């Protein structure tokens, strides 16, 4: 679209299709209308629900403080769209510029935004996964079903996997007074995302709240009773855990299968995009009419050597949606890059965990403020002599400072004193991340190689 008026015409009467009607899709649609897009807008969503917010599902909803079907996202403005909800997209024809839907319909577009997100990685043994009482938690329906079961007061809940979601689920169960066992193959909870030093604090939190936490073990099998209800789990250390609710929390899989064969650079690691959220095709050539945003996208990040980052973060979905929408409507010189520093939060066992940057890329950690023992601290992560990430346990107000250090690629360890520096913060220590060649479900920031068309990496669940 050069300066021949075609962009103006597109903004006036073009067709934009958004596949994936969740947070990123909705925010992109709002931005498109905010920025004056007057053409037709179609929102395609696999789930039958209008866009809803997921973070409450593992917190308020499991605690019984909110109902899963009342989590619809507030609207910033009206988007005047055609909504095709409950109909998954099944294929993309890039040459004909059409999206195929599960009901056989085809929707033509001038520009396409893909924000299909991720889904829970299921329990790998299908017959066991189908036992009554085995859950995953990703969608509103998952949340509603699990909350209902927890309200019935199960005798013991088993959570498989102590990443953020698994830990939040365990926390909610504890708070409801339920007996909980957590099985984690790593050395501690959150180890993939935050390393072993902070993971040890997370483990302490779990145990102090009465969680039966078992690390370094895998669940090898789930057993059902005669009526098809889950009854127990076998662990790799030979032990058995009797549980009537099992929640499989082994991370997520990107929803890209529907793009197989389309020619788009989409694979298990997501859809490769440039810094402006334009998708690459499998030849490594950037498209100009297909964009991606949110959990399904992976973008090169200037702060991390332009390596492609996949981020399953709420804030990343919002900011990429804004960038993608803006760029869809802009001349090439007016386009904006996505440069936000990654950030996420988790609430578990009464503690607010927040992080900025990419802790999982760090090799060392310095407890710059507070104390691990008190579960109130700021940890700063270093990589090759620079600050690359930070995490705070109940110390959120300091994080903007550390974010600035990350943005400025400040030296690590930080050469200055701070308030509340304790004896365990005098020198950096090994951040103790697991061997990156061992697949884990934990990291919230994943490096997935330099090549935009890299589809070699595959994930094989260890369970």
């Amino acid at each position: 679209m050069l300066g021949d008026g075609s962009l103006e015409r597109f903004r006036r009467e073009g067709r934009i299709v958004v596949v994936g009607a969740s947070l990123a899709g909705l925010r992109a649609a709002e931005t498109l209308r905010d920025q004056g897009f007057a053409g037709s807008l179609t929102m395609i969503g696999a789930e039958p629900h209008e866009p809803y917010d997921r973070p409450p599902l593992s917190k308020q909803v499991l605690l019984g403080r909110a109902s899963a079907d009342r989590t619809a996202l507030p609207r910033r403005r009206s988007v005047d769209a055609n909504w095709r909800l409950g109909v998954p997209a099944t294929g993309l024809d890039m040459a004909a510029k059409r999206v195929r839907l599960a009901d056989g319909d085809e929707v033509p577009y001038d520009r396409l935004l893909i924000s299909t997100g991720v889904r829970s990685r299921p329990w790998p043994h299908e017959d066991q996964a189908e036992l009554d009482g085995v859950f995953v938690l990703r969608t509103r329906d998952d949340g509603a079903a699990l909350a209902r079961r927890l309200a019935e007061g199960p005798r013991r809940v088993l959570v498989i996997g102590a990443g953020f979601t698994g830990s939040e689920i365990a926390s909610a169960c504890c708070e409801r007074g339920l007996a909980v066992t957590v099985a984690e193959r790593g050395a501690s909870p959150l180890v993939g995302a935050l390393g072993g030093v902070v993971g040890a604090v997370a483990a302490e939190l779990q145990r102090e709240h009465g969680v039966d936490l078992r690390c370094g073990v895998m669940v090898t099998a789930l057993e059902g009773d005669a009526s098809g209800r889950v009854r127990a789990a076998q662990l790799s250390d030979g032990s058995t855990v009797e549980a009537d609710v099992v929640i499989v929390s082994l991370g997520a899989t990107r929803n890209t299968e529907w793009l197989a064969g389309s020619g788009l650079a989409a694979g298990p690691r997501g859809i490769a995009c440039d810094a402006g959220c334009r998708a690459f095709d499998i030849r490594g050539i950037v498209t100009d009419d297909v964009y991606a945003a949110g959990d399904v996208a992976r973008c090169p990040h200037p702060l991390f050597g332009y390596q492609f980052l996949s981020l399953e973060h709420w804030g990343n979905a919002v900011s990429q949606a804004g960038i993608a929408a803006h760029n869809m409507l802009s001349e090439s010189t007016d386009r904006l890059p996505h440069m936000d520093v990654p950030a996420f939060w988790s609430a578990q066992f009464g503690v607010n965990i927040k992080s900025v940057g990419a802790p999982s890329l760090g090799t060392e950690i310095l407890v710059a403020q507070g104390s691990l023992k008190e579960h109130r601290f700021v940890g700063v992560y270093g990589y090759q002599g620079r600050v690359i990430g930070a995490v705070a346990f109940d110390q959120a107000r300091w994080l903007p400072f550390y974010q600035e250090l990350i943005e400025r690629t400040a030296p690590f360890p930080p050469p200055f004193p701070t308030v509340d520096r304790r004896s365990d913060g005098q020198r950096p220590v090994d951040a103790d991340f697991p061997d990156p060649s061992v697949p884990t479900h934990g990291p919230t920031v994943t490096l997935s190689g330099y090549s935009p068309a890299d589809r070699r990496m595959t994930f094989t669940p260890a369970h």
Partner: protein
Amino acid sequence: MTQSPLHRILDFANRADPYPVYEELRKTPVYHEDDGPYVISTYYEIRSLLHDPRISSDARNLSSATRDPLAGPDQEDMALPPSFLRLDPPEHDRLRRMTNRHFGPPHSPHRVDGMRAELHGIVSGLVDGIGDPGRIDLVEQFSYPFPVTVICRLLGVPREDEARFHTWADTIAASLDPDPDADPAERGRGAHDARTQLGMYLAGLIEERRRNPGDDMLSELATAKGPDGTMSTMELLSTAALLLIAGHETTVNLVTNGMLTLLRHPEVLQRLRADPRLAVPVVEELLRFEPPVQLLPQRTTLADVEVHGVNIPKGASLWLVLASGNRDPRRFGDPDRFDPDREDIQHLGFGSGIHSCFGAPLARLEAQLALSELARRLENPRLLEDPPPYRRNAVLRGPRHLHIACDGIRA
């Protein structure tokens, strides 16, 4: 004669309108002369320093070489240990947490919300008692007594003692605002006496509450056994004094500055009269436009810190001029316009970071209720003098009197 910006901030002649001084100051975002403090006047630099762990609030970290005209023993009685306002973590966090346990969420989520009806009652009573509508001193008759009464109710000071409490609070407040014509020795003595008497009174009340606790904040603070332990009597006195002094003067100024600003913007006053819900954005915009705390002195650097290209050495004294940051055109469009319809209003009126105003939610409610009630009940209110006479204090800035008249008081 050209004065240095530092002197112009302190110069009483600029009290009624300090904003041109700040505008000049912002041309040098980090201003410093001789051995004086480093004065930070731009929004982003201030906000960044408020979240910077290299900045201490503990005066013991100040280098003795610094000469700061706002430093030294003033606001708080030196006989008491420093309150959390002047401490760094972990002590700050511990004391603030222990105090908050009985003031706000998560442990006391309904304390402030539950005071709405009582606040409304106090406000109505004060307006009812205004008397001659032809000449009202809003400060004496309304803004001043309101927050003292609120703090008495919050702490659980018995009604029959409120009058004594008011007298001490007045004397202490006056000592924060030295009248240059008064004899300093006498004023100092008066304030010292008032502090001693207030301290003894509070100590007695604490003892009484330990024996017969009620559901007020002082009883809870005195008897609590939380995860952080129990406050010592000295810590408790220090905290109560902080709540009283920090919560009093600032609220007086917020309400008085608010009414002054509304009377200068009659169209907004008119809208507020028609719709009391407008009080919410009006108060937020007031906190930006006329913040009760103009600047935060008494912060110091624990290391050399570079701000806007200027190296501030370790141990230096900082002034963070919140009121100037709030008028920074790099942050707010048309910053000198009072505009309650502003959508982007992340002001610095309550500070930011770990020391952000402890009483902010209560101050918000007090100001919202006071201004909407005044707008509703005063018929055709007008200023009798503009600008009004100001207090001398450059930090806690506000009118000493606000003389207004109206045609009558509505029921």
